[in-house]
């Protein structure tokens, strides 16, 4: 199986849109515009790993998508949780020797711990180093809502990401 799915292979008609990688991870079907935030969140631009990023690529079942290929990186379960907040519904392909050895679709986690600051400036997490920001995640009417464990404020995902400089 190739590193991008069959639809993309068909779209490219044999023209390689992005280079294949020997070992690492391909994050496919990222909602357009989110790849840059993933790069920021995981500080991929400050590593020496080979990195290929595609923005607004045509996709069979999405109107357009972003894609990231990064060499010699695999995601821990915690990182996968973080990634799924930025790119719910993305597909993660783990690559070894140019082959896909694991492939899974991301799902929103129920909680995120220590990944984002709370946008409420009066939240205790801003002054107490022991209070690691935690958010419970719920999907309501198609919107991802994140509720601070401490101050109980509920934020749209977009607001939280914007506050954290990720959108």
């Amino acid at each position, binding site marked *: 199986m190739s590193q991008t799915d069959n639809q993309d292979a068909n779209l490219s008609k044999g023209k390689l849109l992005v280079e294949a990688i020997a070992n690492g991870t391909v994050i496919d079907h990222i909602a357009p515009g989110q790849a840059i935030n993933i790069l920021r969140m995981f500080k991929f631009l400050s590593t020496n790993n080979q990195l290929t990023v595609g923005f607004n690529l045509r996709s069979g079942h999405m109107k357009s998508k972003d894609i990231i290929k990064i060499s010699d990186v695999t995601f821990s379960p915690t990182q996968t949780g973080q990634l799924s907040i930025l790119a719910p519904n993305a597909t993660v392909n783990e690559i070894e020797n140019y082959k896909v050895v694991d492939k899974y679709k991301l799902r929103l986690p129920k909680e995120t711990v220590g990944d984002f600051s709370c946008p409420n400036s009066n939240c*205790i997490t801003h002054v*107490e*180093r*022991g209070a690691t920001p935690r958010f419970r995640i719920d999907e309501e009417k198609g919107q991802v809502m994140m509720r*601070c464990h*401490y*101050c*109980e*404020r509920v934020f749209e995902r977009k607001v939280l990401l914007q506050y954290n400089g990720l959108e």
Partner: protein
Amino acid sequence: MINPLFQKDIISISEFSKEHIELILKTARELKDHPRDDLLKGRLVGVTFFEGSTRTRLSFETAIQRLGGRVIGFPDAANTSLGKKGETLADSIRIITSYTDALVIRHHREGAARLAADLSPVPVINAGDGANQHPSQTMLDLFTIYETQGRLDGIKLAFVGDLKYGRTVHSLAEALSLYGAEFYLVSPESLAMPQYILDDLDARGIRYHICPTLEEVIPEVDILYMTRVQKERFDETEYQNLRSKFILTPDKLLEAKDNMKILHPLPRIDEITTEVDETPYAYYFKQAANGVYAREAMLSLVLNKEI
């Protein structure tokens, strides 16, 4: 049977089921009718007010002492290690809860009570965390509504004044939503109920009406819940204009229903004139007195398997 609140924290009204609310109200009623001086005997409770609040603190301390318990604590953070030496709240909580059987905490930061509860080996009761929660106020409000109306179901209640910043209003609205309340919202436009609360009421199927004047809601409601419009939020001209609209005077009460009662979380400044105190509708001082019974109930339940 072990009561479901034994050794539990009381941090947020959003965690309360109807069963919990009714257990607290029933216990408060029993303690009001038949005072007990043994339920906290031999117990030491930390009453830690990192932010000052005279009425709430005295109400908690009265409740503890009436139940036979003892108190350590402080009325504000100014003379604590946290205030003077920069100790973290977490460290303060760890130390104090190693001395006490329960902790009451008030703090100006939202989420401080949750942090305390996460760290404490003993039950924590939130006495107000910034603009977030003040569950003992909500309990005393519910207790008073039940006392005056004989029910919580289907109460028609008007919130008047500052509906934007008032955590009391938000928490009471949330709690009464469990009982199918109908709300009348009367406020200056700049202090209107936040949209996220209205969305929550919509999601719960709760009816509410946004009303421009106090007069039109008074004949409709069982409870008129007044709050203070803070002068500092407005310029002087605007404030004087608002005053006339949102100040309750006896002449506005002529068409009130017989069962209608006026509540206020206090302190009252001038949004209810003192002449209203003499009318049969005024209940805010009795409401404040009920705070002791509601707090007695909460403390008794978290510290006793059975009552």
